[in-house]
């Protein structure tokens, strides 16, 4: 390995790492606020790529059907629970939020199917149609068991992942997709080729991390989320509605997943089940951050990406073995150094 090869590997690693950063931050965000390890999160990124490819090929993406089904289910569950509580006057509002709002982007895509939209509009529609999936899943699956233990939530998440990848196969089919490049240029930095896409990926990761930083520190909603993350009961006493905080956390994370899906789609062929491995590697990054710290998570995710690149060069058949083996020393180190918050304290 010479310096040139090392530089190319490092750039490739940073580009994959930046994708992992976006997803890992999403993991931490959801976990901090809801205590859910949202396993299907990687799937959402993959679905974004598949949706974008569908729009590019002038087909009706499967996401439309998926969102419609989820929206109807969530609306029915919400109406049923409102009816049992006797709060019938709240039903129109519930219908608007759980049925009408998620269906607006889906309806636009459905109506414009078959026509080639300009790229910015296509990207916007893709993000808009992906956004409701995680919050709707939250309403259908997690809200009824919001006070359960972390372990139960994790088990449900794993089950949900399998359901989602099954649905992915049903709605998107078994073939992989790859979208057109968003930017098509290559510059040379110190003699090493750097593709525009890699720069775009890194730039987006930095931009969205910064945006999140601003959100958490300078907006009321951000501070409410932060409060919920630190102490749910305390936040509740201060008048913060945990359900609303959950929905916002899911929405924000979906933005991150959607962005990473859009960024990765031109670089690699994405299948309905590609999301899991991407999610798992990001999760390693999130573990390095102890599922609490955003900056450490970002560094950890970048580290995973770079490690993956070099591991693939040294011994490609054992690449994933090397990456996941890192988990063991990291977990040992974290469990010795982190202060534990006992699960029982919450009850």
């Amino acid at each position, binding site marked *: 390995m010479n310096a040139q090869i090392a530089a190319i590997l490092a750039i490739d690693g940073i580009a994959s790492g930046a994708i992992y950063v976006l997803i890992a931050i999403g993991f931490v965000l959801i976990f901090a606020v809801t205590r859910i390890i949202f396993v299907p999160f990687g799937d959402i990124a993959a679905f974004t790529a598949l949706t974008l490819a569908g729009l590019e090929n002038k087909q009706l993406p499967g996401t439309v059907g998926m969102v419609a089904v989820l929206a109807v289910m969530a609306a029915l569950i919400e109406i049923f629970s409102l009816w049992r509580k006797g709060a019938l006057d709240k039903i129109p509002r519930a219908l608007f939020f759980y049925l009408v709002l998620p269906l607006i982007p889906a309806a636009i895509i459905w109506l414009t199917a078959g026509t080639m939209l300009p790229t910015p509009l296509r990207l916007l529609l893709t993000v808009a149609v992906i956004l409701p999936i995680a919050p709707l899943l939250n309403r259908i699956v997690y809200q009824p068991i919001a006070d359960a233990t972390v372990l139960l939530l994790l088990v449900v998440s794993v089950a949900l992942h399998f359901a989602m990848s099954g649905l992915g196969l049903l709605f998107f089919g078994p073939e992989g997709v790859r979208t057109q490049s968003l930017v098509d240029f290559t510059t040379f930095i110190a003699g090493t080729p750097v593709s525009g896409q890699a720069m775009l990926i890194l730039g987006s990761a930095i931009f969205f991390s910064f945006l999140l930083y601003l959100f958490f520190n300078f907006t009321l909603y951000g501070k409410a989320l932060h409060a919920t993350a630190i102490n749910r009961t305390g936040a509740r006493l201060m008048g913060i509605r945990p359900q609303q905080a959950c929905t916002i956390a899911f929405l924000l994370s979906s933005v991150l997943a959607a962005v990473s899906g859009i960024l990765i789609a031109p670089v690699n062929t994405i*299948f309905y089940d590609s999301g899991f491995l991407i999610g798992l590697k990001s999760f390693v990054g999130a573990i390095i951050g102890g599922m609490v710290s955003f900056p450490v998570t970002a560094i950890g995710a970048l580290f995973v990406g770079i490690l993956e690149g070099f591991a693939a060069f040294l011994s490609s058949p054992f690449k994933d073995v090397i990456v996941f083996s890192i988990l063991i020393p990291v977990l040992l180190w974290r469990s010795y150094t982190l202060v534990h918050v006992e699960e029982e304290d919450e009850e």
Partner: protein
Amino acid sequence: MRKLSFGVSALAGLLLAGTAHAQEITVGFVTSLSGPASSIGLNYEKGMNAAYAYKDEVSGVKIKLIKLDDGSDPSQATKNARKLVEQDKVDVMIGTSSAPGTNAMMTIANELKVPFFAVSPVNVPIPADGHPWGVSMVQTPQLMVKVIADRMKRDGIKSVGFIGFSDSWGDLVYNGAKAAEANGGPKVLTNERYARTDTSVTAQALKVVAAAPEGFLNGGSATQAALPLLELRKLGFKGPFFGTPSLLNRDFVRIGAKAAEGTQVSAGPVVVTSQLPDDHFAKKIGTAFHESFKKVNGGEADDGFSGYAFDGWVVFLEAAKVALTKAKPGTQEFRQALMDAIYANKDVAGVHAIYNFTPKSYFGVDERSLVVVKLADGKWVYQP
């Protein structure tokens, strides 16, 4: 009510069993019409439709075709096979889209002694007592690699780089290339692997470029096989690309686009029937297959899979001609006669290969079953 429905279904079963004994040959066909293997399974289904439309009788005896879906599930394939033999009393079975499902059906065929035409590779032990009760129509992976390795040798390529899937398919291609190397084929310089869901193969491609081979052998399959090619071209690799029939895929061509241009792969002659010279064994039967396929299914047979189902049918027809002179359909003697005839018939020409089966192996094809095709302007072109 339950008793009644049980009675009715039992009666139906009896009736079915009764009809199977009449003067007609019953063929049971299993494929995956649902589940993950259905993208291939549908091609087999279309191939079978074309085959049945091509010929539905032998020496004046009508053939009855029973089709079942195994849902890409080996255990369902097993159940289907048992149902076909024990309830429908089929004389012959054909199936199925996935290798595990096919192995499961082969085991049943050996156990119940029913001739079976496998349209996927088979890997089960040959029964110790006597001969196997089935044959596989496909080319072996070793053969697929050998044919393309021979072509590299002919073209003067002395060394190749290799990137393949980190699964059994990658191993098969790599081992095939290594075997060819031992026989004077091109030297294999790298053994790099990636998974279908990987996000990048830059590192592997760098390693290939660093080894500076003259050509590159692709051990991936379908859509994701395009990934190393795109990466290698991006890194400035100029050598020619080679591959196996697993690259004959519309999405591989779409995604590989300019990078995949000029890729040469070994392929069953069926994918380029119209380009074959007139004296090629697959020209006549292949043309008949394509016409029949177009008539029944609409659209072109541009996949390799439907041809396997058709070839199973062709070999079955040839064997049935002989067997009908020896025994009556619906009897075990007929099944035995069919199996004997499959082994006795020599040089049966199908759309993929010239078949010569022996009791020693499930496979019965030779190097004539593969031609080399090259991707030019998004189309596969026959390379004599």
